[in-house]
């Protein structure tokens, strides 16, 4: 790893002029094989399968799809998914901005550890997330179960637990977007604002927030997409009862495993809508990216 430092960049001035060399270098014999291999791999792994799902959804025309969309269980599942995702994203936005400011603008013992731990939810299995929440908040066996039941609160098998599970898995997305921007903008403007008599809130609203707004929007879109699609963690903490705690992803699973063409169509329809939202979110995000660098 010691050799990983790139060799002397100062040679750059002496080498023959390369007008923005990327792409204009002489064609390589490997170029076409590489192109074909990469496009082929992506075609078989992603493009074709995704296309087939779209096709399967509308295999019998629009009629069954529209019927599935009128199914009260489907409607309920999407309403629940939206409201769970809304709360989870709202929580993540507020705490994400707070955590980012804490991590970048303050020094305290354990800051590095905390900043590494923030990424943990991205690499922990959703099943482990569900189990972890179950162990603490389950009314029957959880650490806080007695306290919560005593207070008349139900978290597991209820929307509160589902919101927590969703917030858990999408927690790092907002923070990861904001932290680098906060590092980059530095504190000069904030200090200037404060020395001119601005309150901390004014400084935040007038200086910090406008500076991080693209990163924030980007993070929110990502965490919304992640929240709408969460499956494993929600499955454990929700119980997945139709019309009560069944989200759209859980509905896809249940309906796909049931017999009967209406169930299959309902599964495909819900999956298609989820996929559509995911792709739309992606397109929004990729079109936001360039603006940010301008």
């Amino acid at each position, binding site marked *: 790893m010691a050799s990983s430092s790139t*060799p002397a960049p100062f040679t750059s001035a002496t080498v023959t002029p390369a007008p923005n060399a990327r792409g204009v270098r002489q064609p390589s014999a490997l170029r076409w094989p590489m192109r074909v291999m990469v496009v082929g791999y992506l075609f078989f792994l992603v493009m074709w399968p995704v296309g087939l799902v779209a096709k399967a959804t509308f295999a019998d025309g629009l009629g069954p799809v529209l019927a599935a969309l009128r199914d009260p269980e489907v409607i309920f599942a999407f309403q629940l998914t939206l409201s769970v995702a809304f709360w989870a994203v709202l929580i993540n936005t507020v705490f994400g901005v707070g955590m980012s400011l804490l991590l970048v603008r303050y020094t305290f013992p354990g800051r590095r550890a905390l900043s590494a731990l923030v990424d943990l939810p991205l690499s922990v299995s959703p099943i482990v997330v569900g*189990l972890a929440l179950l162990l603490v908040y389950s009314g029957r066996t959880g650490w806080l179960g007695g306290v919560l039941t005593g207070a008349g609160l139900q978290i597991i098998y209820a929307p509160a637990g589902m919101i927590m599970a969703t917030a858990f898995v999408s927690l790092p997305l907002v923070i990861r977007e904001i932290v680098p921007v906060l590092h980059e903008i530095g504190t000069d403007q904030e200090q200037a604002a404060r020395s001119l008599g601005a309150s901390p809130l004014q400084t935040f609203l007038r200086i910090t927030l406008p500076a991080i707004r693209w990163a924030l929007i980007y993070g929110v879109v990502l965490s919304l997409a992640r929240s709408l699609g969460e499956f494993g963690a929600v499955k454990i903490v929700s119980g997945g009862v139709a019309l009560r705690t069944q989200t759209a992803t859980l509905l896809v699973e249940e309906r796909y495993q049931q017999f009967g063409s209406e169930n299959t169509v309902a599964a*495909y329809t819900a999956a298609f809508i989820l996929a559509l939202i995911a792709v739309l979110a992606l397109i929004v995000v990729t079109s936001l990216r360039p603006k940010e660098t301008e």
Partner: protein
Amino acid sequence: MLWFSVLVLIPLLAVLVQASAGGWSAYWAALTSEQTAASLRLTVGQAVVVTLVNIVMGTSIAWVLVRDRFVGKRILEVVIDIPFALPTIVAGLVLLSLYGPSSPLGINWANTPTAVTLAFLFVTLPFVVRTVQPVLLELEPEVEEAAASLGANRFTTFRLIILPSLAPAITSGAALSFARAISEYGSLVLLSGNLPYSTEVASVRILSYVEGDKLTDAAAVASVLLVVALLVIVGLEIISRRVARHG
């Protein structure tokens, strides 16, 4: 901070505490019980295979995206991120449509270990690509030209100039995709059939322990996944510090 503890730290701590509830012997017994050991072997084995494929394919894809130019390249950019954005259960359905019983290719890999490989490949696709791509973009073409002008052929240039600069990025991408693969659950539900000893992965094992109300056993398996996740994060932190120091 308090919220982070309530939401993340305390529950994860509870997993470790619960895992140790039965003592060391119970912990070890849970992990080495035949079915669990089989699921762990499958998960880790497949994750290693998939990570190796990703190192090669991910780097190639990043290479094509940065150095090549052709019509429709922007579409590929979106395609790369689809597995990250798609809900995992939908990812399973998606793969099932091409590699399942009604496949237009006439193959049926559903409920076989190959399905596990496919699902892992799908969900981990973006990691190596997205970590290598920015580094490749920043690489100065002049250095390569200097190497070429000094008589190095393409392969030597790649091995001695490009690969060493990409190594940290490839390593981080590989670590991320390994972590993602061993923790995968959603895309396998419909695709792999979760057959014990054949296609059952660690996450599914945990879930069936939870459903059987064997929380200590569930926590034991979960603690293994948790430790791997922690190791990956610590590893990434070390890599990024080294890169920062060298850069």
